[in-house]
């Protein structure tokens, strides 16, 4: 008999436990420093391959862990609970760079990039967004590539790109046929070390997630070989949309982790801090915030797991992933906001983690699909169902 089952498998539980131990020891104590210094803790990332974190869904033959999507969600939540910056860089590395290479790469491309990407010594990158193109990629992307002899020549600029300074390869979305609309895009594999004309600009100064580098890229007649094409010519836009569908599960899970961290900090503080002769956790105003946070985090996590489950069972998951990311990212912001409220003045101080977590959550409703674009996707799918 088919049954619904809300229990994780033993493998997933053990994985969660191991990740919790790892993140508590290697990431959480350093999260404030990562935020302040703007540098990821490579000592921790170097140790990640053993836990599969640098190749969550990469086949084992290339050094990955070949995990199911629920385990991926578990990993992203645990990373997010410990350090938002590290989690974001790992989400981009896994979902946006390793993912497309595993899915559309030729054997030669997989052999060239995946062992290096899973080594724990580098992080991969995907360049979609441009100074004038974010939510509306289809109409606004200007970066183009033209064939010339045995090469593609890339010209243009990308903005808000995660990880370029650590990346041996930056997958770049380019227009290869300006007349073909959404069928005129392609993805090219660009190796910063081996090309000329690519400038990786200084990391942006951001509100949160400061340890995860976000950079602008300029392509000035950057020449890559014809076999740098990832997947089929003309399929780039569809590849992007499929990649972002999966990425939303990651960002949703990361958001749940941030929410969980803020929630735990808020509850612990509420049990300690006393006003009017008792811990503030005994006051109803605080209890309501705690109850709402516990409920909303639970809902968000279940939505993330469901989207992951659908993906693992090869069922349509695009709408559910959009819903999960929308829910989780907005929950994270609300929970972090209230965790600061529970802390009062101390919550506004950098001495307590909730201040950082709140800043970190703010990106979650913007990156890899803004809340507004997600609502558009969800509304479109919902309205179609009534046609």
């Amino acid at each position: 008999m088919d049954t619904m089952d809300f229990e994780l498998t033993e493998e997933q539980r053990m994985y969660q436990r191991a990740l919790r131990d790892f993140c508590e020891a290697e990431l959480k104590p350093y999260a404030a420093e990562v935020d302040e210094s703007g540098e990821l803790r490579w000592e921790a990332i170097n140790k990640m391959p053993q836990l599969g974190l640098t190749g969550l869904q990469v086949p084992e033959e290339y050094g990955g862990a070949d995990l199911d999507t629920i385990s991926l969600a578990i990993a992203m939540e645990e990373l997010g609970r410990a350090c938002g910056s590290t989690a974001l860089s790992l989400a981009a590395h896994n979902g946006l760079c390793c993912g497309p290479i595993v899915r559309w790469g030729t054997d030669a491309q997989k052999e060239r990039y995946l062992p290096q990407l899973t080594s724990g010594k580098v992080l991969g990158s995907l360049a979609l967004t441009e100074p004038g193109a974010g939510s509306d990629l289809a109409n606004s992307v200007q970066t183009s590539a033209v064939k010339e002899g045995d090469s593609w020549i890339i010209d243009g600029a990308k903005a808000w790109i995660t990880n370029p300074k650590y990346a041996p390869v930056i997958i770049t979305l380019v227009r290869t046929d300006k007349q073909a609309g959404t069928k005129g895009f392609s993805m090219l594999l660009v190796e910063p070390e081996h090309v000329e004309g690519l400038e990786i600009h200084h990391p942006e100064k951001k509100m949160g997630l400061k340890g995860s580098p976000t950079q602008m890229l300029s392509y000035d007649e950057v020449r890559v070989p014809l076999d740098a094409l990832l997947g089929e010519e003309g399929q780039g836009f569809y590849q992007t949309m499929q990649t972002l569908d999966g990425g939303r599960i990651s960002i949703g899970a990361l958001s749940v982790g941030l929410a969980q961290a803020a929630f735990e900090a808020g509850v612990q503080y509420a049990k300690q801090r006393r006003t009017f002769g008792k811990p503030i956790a005994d006051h109803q105003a605080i209890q309501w915030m705690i109850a709402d946070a516990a409920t909303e985090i639970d809902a968000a996590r279940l939505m993330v797991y469901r989207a992951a489950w659908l993906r693992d069972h090869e069922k349509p998951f695009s709408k559910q992933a959009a819903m999960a990311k929308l829910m989780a990212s907005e929950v994270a912001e609300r929970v972090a906001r209230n965790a600061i409220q529970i802390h009062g003045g101390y919550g506004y101080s950098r001495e307590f983690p909730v201040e950082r977590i709140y800043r970190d959550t703010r990106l979650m409703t913007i990156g890899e699909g803004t809340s507004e674009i997600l609502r558009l996707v969800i509304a479109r799918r919902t309205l179609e169902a009534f046609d």
Partner: protein
Amino acid sequence: MHVVVFTRSTPDTAAKVEVDANGQVTWGDAATVVNPWDEYSLEEAILQAQNNGGKSTVIAIGTEMHNDALKHSLAMGLDAAIRVWDDALEGTDSLAWATVAAAAVNKLGDVDLVIFGKESVDVGTDQHNYQTARKLGWPMLSYVAQILEVDYDAKTIKVERMLEQGRQIVTSKLPAVISVMKDINEPRYPSFIGIRKASKAEIPVWSLADLGVDLPATHTSTPTFKNLPKVDIQVEIMQGDIDEQVATLVDRLLEEKVL
């Protein structure tokens, strides 16, 4: 060569341990972890087996709750796990435990080295280590901070023991029993490959009949458990400049008869 480690699941060290209304020790719904001291003995067993082309086995004596510690051990990289349990072991003491532990080692037959963590964190005792060595009739080297040399063919081991008086270098014959300190290594995290294998592993359970052992009479018993007396802590922050603060502090310490 074959190295054996004993481990157990213990409450998370952050768990709040209390004696409940029925006089029983509880730690609420706290998660269990592998006895933290055993992380070092498990790591050492993996290293010894890897470096000397041998085999490592982990054993837990106890109820199903200890499967978690065994699976964690397998996920770290131990080659095999065994659980020993029999209802007759309920309520017995460390002598019975050691009798069973020695019988399990003897049943394996080819063991060169038994490694214990320094102690069990939940009960804060280590006599079972020495009792097991005595039951086996093997030398016991406790508080080992470093294995300096080991030769499984010549059956010798040279270790550095960390004692209150200083460091002591000891050479012994194998087979032997050692207990290890935190200095000895840096325990690894379980790997995803290890977790994958461990989650599917069926752990065999040996009974007293399987071991062919009779339990000795239990010589120790625990009449009652009591909670620690509650300590009322008052906090006072000294005011004024540093000289005034020190003067006030000294006055307070004299008042409280601390000085």
